[in-house]
C-alpha cells in the first residue's frame, strides 16, 4: 500500500520529508473517525438500549420474557405475542410483495425497452417517497373500513372449512388486523425489493441470454433457464432485506394492526407487533413497563441485525461470484 500511495513523495532520502503535512494527517484522522462512527453508533445502540432494558430481563427471567402473557396492569410482560405478530405480518408482506417485485424487476430488465423502464422506475420510487405515516393514515381511515366488509364476507364463507377457516375465519373480524398490516407492509417493501432484485437481474451476462434465444427458447424459457438460476442468490438476499424492513416498519403497522396482544391463527383478527407496541405505549410507560418495551426494542434490533448481516452476506457473495464468472 505504502509504495503504491502516490501521496507519499517517492524516493525522498530524508525521513522527515516522507511525513505528510499536519493538515493532511488531521484530515485523514477526521475521515477515519467519521467512518468508525458507524461502528460506534451500532455498538452504542446495543449497549444503551440493553442497559435500559436490563431490569426486564433480570426480573422476568427467560420464562417471563418468552411467555405469552402481556398484562402491564399486573406487571406481566411476555414478548411472544409481539414476536408472533411481527413474524406473521412480515410473512404476509413477503408472500404478497415478493412475486410482485420479482415480476416488476423482470418486466423492467427483460421486457420493456429502456426508454420505458425509466418512467416505471420513477413510479416505483414514488411508492418509497410516500412516508410510512401517510400509508398508516390511509390504511386506518380508508383501507381498513373498506376491507372490513370484504373480511366479513370471506370469513362467513370459509368458517368451518379446514385450514381456510383457521386462517381467514374466526368471529373477531376487524378491518385493522394482521392481514391489513401485512398488506400495507407489502406495499412499503415493494420498492426496495424491486430495486435490489433489478440490480441483481441486470448482472446476467448478455451472452448467456442470447445463447438461450439462439437455442430457440421463448423469453420466459430464457428467464427460467438463464436469468433466474444466475440471480438466485441475489434474489434470496433482497428478499431477506425486504423481510428486515417489514419487521422493523413501525408507524404504518402501529396504526393498522389493531393493537391487541393476542396470538391467534385468524389473520383477520386484530394483533400487535414489536415496533407497533413500542410506538403506541412507550410514551406513557414507566418503570418495568418501559424496560419491557425497551427490551422489545433490543430484541427487534437483534433480529433485524442478524437478518441484515445474513442478507448482505448473501448479496455480496453472489455479486462476487457473478463478477468472477
Amino acid at each position: 500500500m505504502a509504495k503504491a500511495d502516490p501521496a507519499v513523495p517517492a524516493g525522498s532520502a530524508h525521513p522527515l520529508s516522507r511525513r505528510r503535512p499536519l493538515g493532511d494527517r488531521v484530515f485523514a484522522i477526521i475521515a477515519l473517525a467519521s467512518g468508525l462512527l458507524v461502528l460506534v453508533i451500532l455498538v452504542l445502540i446495543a449497549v444503551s438500549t440493553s442497559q435500559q432494558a436490563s431490569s426486564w430481563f433480570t426480573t422476568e427471567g427467560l420464562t417471563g420474557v418468552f411467555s405469552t402473557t402481556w398484562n402491564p396492569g399486573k406487571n406481566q410482560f411476555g414478548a411472544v405475542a409481539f414476536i408472533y405478530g411481527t413474524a406473521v405480518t412480515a410473512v404476509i408482506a413477503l408472500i404478497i410483495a415478493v412475486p410482485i417485485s420479482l415480476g416488476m424487476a423482470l418486466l423492467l430488465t427483460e421486457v420493456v425497452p429502456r426508454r420505458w423502464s425509466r418512467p416505471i422506475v420513477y413510479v416505483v420510487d414514488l411508492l418509497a417517497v410516500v412516508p410510512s405515516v401517510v400509508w398508516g393514515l390511509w390504511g386506518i381511515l380508508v383501507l381498513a373500513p373498506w376491507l372490513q366488509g370484504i373480511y366479513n364476507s370471506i370469513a362467513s364463507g370459509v368458517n368451518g372449512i379446514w385450514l381456510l377457516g383457521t386462517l381467514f375465519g374466526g368471529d373477531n373480524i376487524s378491518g385493522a388486523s394482521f392481514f391489513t398490516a401485512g398488506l400495507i407492509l407489502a406495499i412499503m417493501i415493494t420498492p426496495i425489493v424491486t430495486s435490489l432484485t433489478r440490480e441483481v437481474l441486470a448482472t446476467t451476462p448478455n451472452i448467456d441470454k442470447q445463447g438461450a434465444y439462439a437455442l430457440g427458447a421463448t423469453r420466459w424459457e430464457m428467464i427460467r433457464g438463464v436469468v433466474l438460476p444466475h440471480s438466485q442468490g441475489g434474489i434470496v438476499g433482497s428478499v431477506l432485506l425486504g423481510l428486515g424492513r417489514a419487521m422493523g416498519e413501525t408507524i404504518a403497522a402501529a396504526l393498522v394492526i389493531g393493537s391487541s396482544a393476542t396470538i391467534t391463527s385468524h389473520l383477520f383478527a386484530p394483533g400487535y407487533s414489536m415496533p407497533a407496541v413500542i410506538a403506541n405505549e412507550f410514551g406513557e410507560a414507566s418503570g418495568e413497563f418501559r424496560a419491557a418495551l425497551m427490551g422489545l426494542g433490543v430484541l427487534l434490533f437483534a433480529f433485524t441485525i442478524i437478518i441484515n448481516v445474513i442478507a448482505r452476506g448473501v448479496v455480496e457473495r453472489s455479486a462476487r461470484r457473478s463478477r468472477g464468472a
Partner: protein
Amino acid sequence: MAVVADQPNVDLREPPSWRRTKNRIMTWLMVLAFVLVVVPLGFVLFTVIAKGASVISWQFLTADIPINVMPANVGGMGPAIVGTIEITALATVIAVPLGVLGAIYINEYGGKGLLAQVVRFMADVMTGVPSIVMGLFIFSIWTLHYGFSGLGGAFALACLMLPIVIRSTEEMLKLVPDSLRQGSYALGATKARVTMTVVLPAALGGIVSGALLAVARAAGETAPLLFTILTVTTVNKNVFYGPNTSLPSQIFANASSAFTGAQARGWGAALTLIVIAFILMIVARLVTARFARYSS
C-alpha cells in the same frame, strides 16, 4: 429451377404452441405486477390530494394546532411545519458532513483494507436498523438526561441518514476517474487537498442528490421522533431546547383520533408532507441531471 419446385411446402412460422402461450401468460403477469403497484399508489395520492387540498390554506400552514374536537376550518399545522423544517435541517447539518467524510475514508483512505470493508458492510447493515430503534437509542442516551428537544429528534434522524449518505456518496466517489487523482498528485498536491479540491467537486452532483434523497426519507419519519421531541401545539423556534413537534408526529396523533376535524387536519398535514418530500426528490433528480459529471 426444378429443384426449387420439388421442395416440400414448409411453413416457417412457428405454430401456436403451449410454450408460446406460457410465454405470453408470464409477460402479462409481469404487467399485472406493475398494475398492482400503481393501483395503491394512485389510490393513496388521490385520497391525500382530495382530502388534503380542501383543508390547506395560508391559515392552515401558519396557525397553531387546535385541540382535536375543533372542526377542520379552525387552526392549522404551523408548529409542525416549522418543527419538521428545523429538525430535518439540523439532522442534515449533522449527518451529511459526517457521512461524506465516512465515505471519503472508505473510498479514498481505506480502499480494500479490512477495516474499510467492515465499515462499508456495517453501514449497509445500519440502513436496515428499524427507525423505532433509533428513537429508543437517542431516548436512552440523550432524552433521558437532557429532556425532550428538537436536537434529540435531529440526532435520531441523523442516525438514520448517516448510512444512506455514506453509501450513496461512496458510490459517487467510486465513479471519479483515477486519472484525475493522479494528475493532481503529479502537481504535488497532498492527499487531503486532492480529495477536497478535485475528487469532491467532481462527484458533487451525485453527492448532493443522494443527500437530498436521504433528507426526503428522514423528513417523513415518525418513529424516531415519538420519544425524542414529544408534541406541542405552538411554534417552538428553539430547536435546541424544549419539546417540539413535526408533521409526521401530528399525522400519527390525528390518525388515531375519532374527531373528523382532527382527521381532516391529518390529511392536510399528509399532503403538506408529501409535497415537501416530492419537491426534495424532484430537486435531487434535477441536480443529478444538471451536475452529474460521471454517472453509472
